[in-house]
């Protein structure tokens, strides 16, 4: 059998998985796509193992390990997804944007840059005031 067949199949599967990872919104679907990518790698490993007739069968052994690790990964991944879902009420990856720059910063930055510094400064005294207010609000509770 031509080696190109399993190799090309693995490549295509990998890219399909890649697409899924990048395009899917639901975190569990992203995990599924990851599984596809892992399987593409497994197929490669097996094909090359058979092709090379490796005495130690390193490819097949690694495939087994990969499968086990994939199982562990899917378990941990699902646990994380569930934890996120419980805390945030969603499992959509593009809703989890805590690391984003604040959108108002981004909006201001282009428009009134020269007053940006001056506009930021009055904000700072507000923050402790807010902090105090929230503390006061919490204190009775």
């Amino acid at each position: 059998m031509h080696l190109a067949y399993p190799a090309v199949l693995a490549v295509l599967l990998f890219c399909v998985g890649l697409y899924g990872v990048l395009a899917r919104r639901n975190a569990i679907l992203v995990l599924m796509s990851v599984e596809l990518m892992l399987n593409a790698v497994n197929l490669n490993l097996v094909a090359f193992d058979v092709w090379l007739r490796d005495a130690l069968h390193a490819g097949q052994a690694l495939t087994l390990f990969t499968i086990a690790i994939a199982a562990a990964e899917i378990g941990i991944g699902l646990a994380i997804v569930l934890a996120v879902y419980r805390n945030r009420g969603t499992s959509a990856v593009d809703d989890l944007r805590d690391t984003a720059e604040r959108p108002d910063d981004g909006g201001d930055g282009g428009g009134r840059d020269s007053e940006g510094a001056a506009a930021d400064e009055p904000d700072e005294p507000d923050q402790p005031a807010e902090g105090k207010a929230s503390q006061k609000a919490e204190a009775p509770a």
Partner: protein
Amino acid sequence: MTFAATGHGTLAAAAPQGFLSPTGVEIAFVLVGLVTLGAAVVTVTTRQLVHAALWLVVALGGLAVEYLLLTAEFIAWVQVLIYVGSVVVLLLFGLMLTRAPIGRSPDADSGNRPAALAVALAAAAALVWVVVDAFRTQWIDLDKPQGTTEVTGSILFRHWVLPFEALSVLLLAALVGAIVLSRRNAARSEDPGTSRPGPAGAPSDRAGDKEQR
């Protein structure tokens, strides 16, 4: 196409093999491969989440068949057992626990889809080009099975026993990790201050149980 005229320097016997004269195994491999690929594509494109999991079963099963065709029978059965048997079940559980909508959900794909398509196509083109360019003349001799259970077992427990044991430790760590993640969240969910009850605590533990196998 010059593929047909190739054949120099392969591991197999000197008999030249061509794309235009496929063997039976090759035909079967290509057909199953097409099914697998199609199922994978549907998996990542369908708008019905549960269907995606089911199509994943098809894809993974197809891959198991491919393993068989590549004479790696033990891998094939492990594939069926673990992927089809447990991973997909886990994913289904996950879908249900996150209250994934049954039926078509319009927002299954994120706004990143064009970029994802571009990146995937570019990667596919690049990789296919490279792989075909590199391996178009290579030939796999399937006369002698390479992955019988006996061979795999002996190799695994003779040469690969130490990584195997290390892997077991890793699985244990994953088990503990999954439990810890679920526990802490469960403890927090019991806090009367937070509003959301934790229906997912127990199933999450079960996920860890399944993983233990």
